[in-house]
């Protein structure tokens, strides 16, 4: 885990419609985090989640992509419903998507709704703890799979590279390098070492990719986001 962001524990809300999964995550986080994380609430539906978030004003919400209730868009609805809620310290509430879904459109939809990252449910406890701390600090968290999606969706794997970093529809060559290393299973620390840059710079690149992911109107992205399949 990275350095603590102040002495206060990170206040966390778990949103998942499987009670067993929630208790599993709770047990795992209790075990590894000591008093760094405090789980202040749990919810199993969109409406209950919005209620709990408004009431508790947590720092981080661990958010399942598929949830019952709301407008039927699961995690995205929770993020939309919690708009305007701030943490007790006055900052924005951060969302970390946690899903078993491999479907690109599910992931892209929740990221575009405002989640700061995406990890799969098979993630190990310590890694999950690290991801939560990172999201609480305002950084983005990308799983290898999400990095793969990004490379595919922005055409970076096929060699499309932005001329200027600010271009929303393509990745810069540095961002592409970072995404490739994350897809290869590298931790941020290892990415930094590989590219001879600082961890902070890696985090900046990842956040910038997240921003592009959220704001870009690139066709593949919007197609994915809008054609979200319903089971």
């Amino acid at each position, binding site marked *: 885990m990275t350095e603590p962001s102040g002495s206060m524990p990170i206040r966390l809300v778990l949103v998942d419609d499987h009670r067993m999964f929630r208790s599993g995550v709770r047990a795992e986080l209790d075990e590894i985090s000591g008093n760094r994380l405090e789980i202040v609430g749990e919810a199993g539906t969109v409406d209950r989640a919005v209620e709990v978030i408004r009431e508790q004003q947590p720092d981080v919400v661990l958010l399942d992509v598929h949830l019952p209730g709301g407008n039927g868009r699961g995690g995205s609805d929770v993020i939309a419903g919690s708009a305007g809620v701030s943490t007790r310290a006055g900052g924005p509430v951060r969302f970390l998507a946690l899903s*078993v*879904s*491999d*479907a*690109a459109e599910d992931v892209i939809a929740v990221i575009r709704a405002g989640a700061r990252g995406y990890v799969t449910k*098979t993630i*190990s406890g310590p890694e999950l703890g690290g991801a939560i701390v990172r999201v609480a600090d305002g950084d983005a968290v990308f799983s*290898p*799979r999400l*990095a*793969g999606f990004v*490379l*595919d969706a922005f055409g970076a*794997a*096929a*060699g499309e590279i932005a001329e200027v970093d600010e271009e929303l529809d393509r990745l810069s060559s540095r961002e592409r390098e970072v995404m*490739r290393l994350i*897809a*290869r*299973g*590298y931790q941020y620390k*290892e990415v930094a*070492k590989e590219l001879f840059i600082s961890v902070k710079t890696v985090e900046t690149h990842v956040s910038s990719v997240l921003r592009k992911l959220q704001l870009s109107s690139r066709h593949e992205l919007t197609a994915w986001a809008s054609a979200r*399949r319903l*089971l």
Partner: protein
Amino acid sequence: MREYEVVTSPHAAPGPQGVAPRRERPPLRRASEGRVVAGVCRGLADHLGLHPLALRAAIVVLTLVGGTGALIYAFLWATVEPDEGEAQIRAARTRWADPGVLLVVGGGLAVLLGVAALVQSWGLDLRLDITLPVLLLTVGAVFVWSQLDAPRRDRLLAHQGIDRRQALGRLVLGLGLAVAGLVALGVQGGNLAQLRDVGGAVLLTLAGVSLLAAPYVARLWRDLREEQAGRIRETERADIAAHLHDSVLQTLALIQRRADDPVQVARLARAQERELRSWLYTGPTGHAATLAGAVAAVGHEVEDLHGVPIELVVTGDRPLDADGQALVNALREALVNAVRHGEPPVSAYVEVGRVSVEAFVRDHGAGFDPDDVPADRLGVRESILGRMQRHGGTARVRRLESGTEVSLELPVPVEHQGAES
């Protein structure tokens, strides 16, 4: 009040004898006991709660006045099920045990009586050409009403519904009979002008009846649609249940039996997860005829063989050729090495680009130096490095701070580069 003979409904257990008769009427059946001819009057009397003698008298009178009574009797005898056996009781119930039908039968009889009396008062002799249309009319009306009432009856009794197509067919038949009867009754012995008048009257009546019946018909149709939709949902549900049973439940059973073998449990769980995923999301990769499909297949195979999860990410795709197959084979060897000698998590990333295909396999073990590998160990030297070189590619083994990474690179033939998108 007289005692009912058989009051069991197919859904209720037979009650003890002597219990007060149920409020529900007994179904219309031809009585097998206490009958005079075929049990029609007795059965009808039981059903209507009238004295059988009154009905018999009515039939006899109607028969004497013009033969109608005999026709009605014959009709009922032909259509009403005899009172014997459970199956027939049930069949009779679904067809006749209904207050609506009761009304129709009663009303039909009253109409018959009235018409007979009316015609009699005109001093006319009742002949078959009058009684036959009247009968047709009655039969048609009975059919129409018994069917129009079906949805309500079904809802009240919560039966499994009768075949609605058949019901619609009967409705049409009944209406046709009724029209034929009306016209025949109206124009007998008349001229052309009468025919027109009567035809107009019949059409007007029909229009009125249609207006009245429209809501019922609409409901009948809606019920039919709902039932069909419900059946489709049920089929889907059954398909999903069958799939879950064949796959997930079987695996869970296996896992319980192998609970003491964590490697096996992990392998089973992983394989099942993948199977379910591909079933739910039709998988992120294509079929095995493409490079991405072959890579995914190899990744799954190694996972299954060794029970170690592999985080496999593939971007891009292209058709699988001989060089691509060589890369897949080398990748497989690298994955086997990673799961066998390295530590999890094992990650694999394959990027199918425009000018080259790159593959990375990394584990988190202690790592090894490729130069230390004995020459007789074919694994890395031959299967990975040699194979890639033979197909114009390169392979590299790197030792990281934690773990080892094997990178493979294969250039895409120039003639294919333009075709890629």
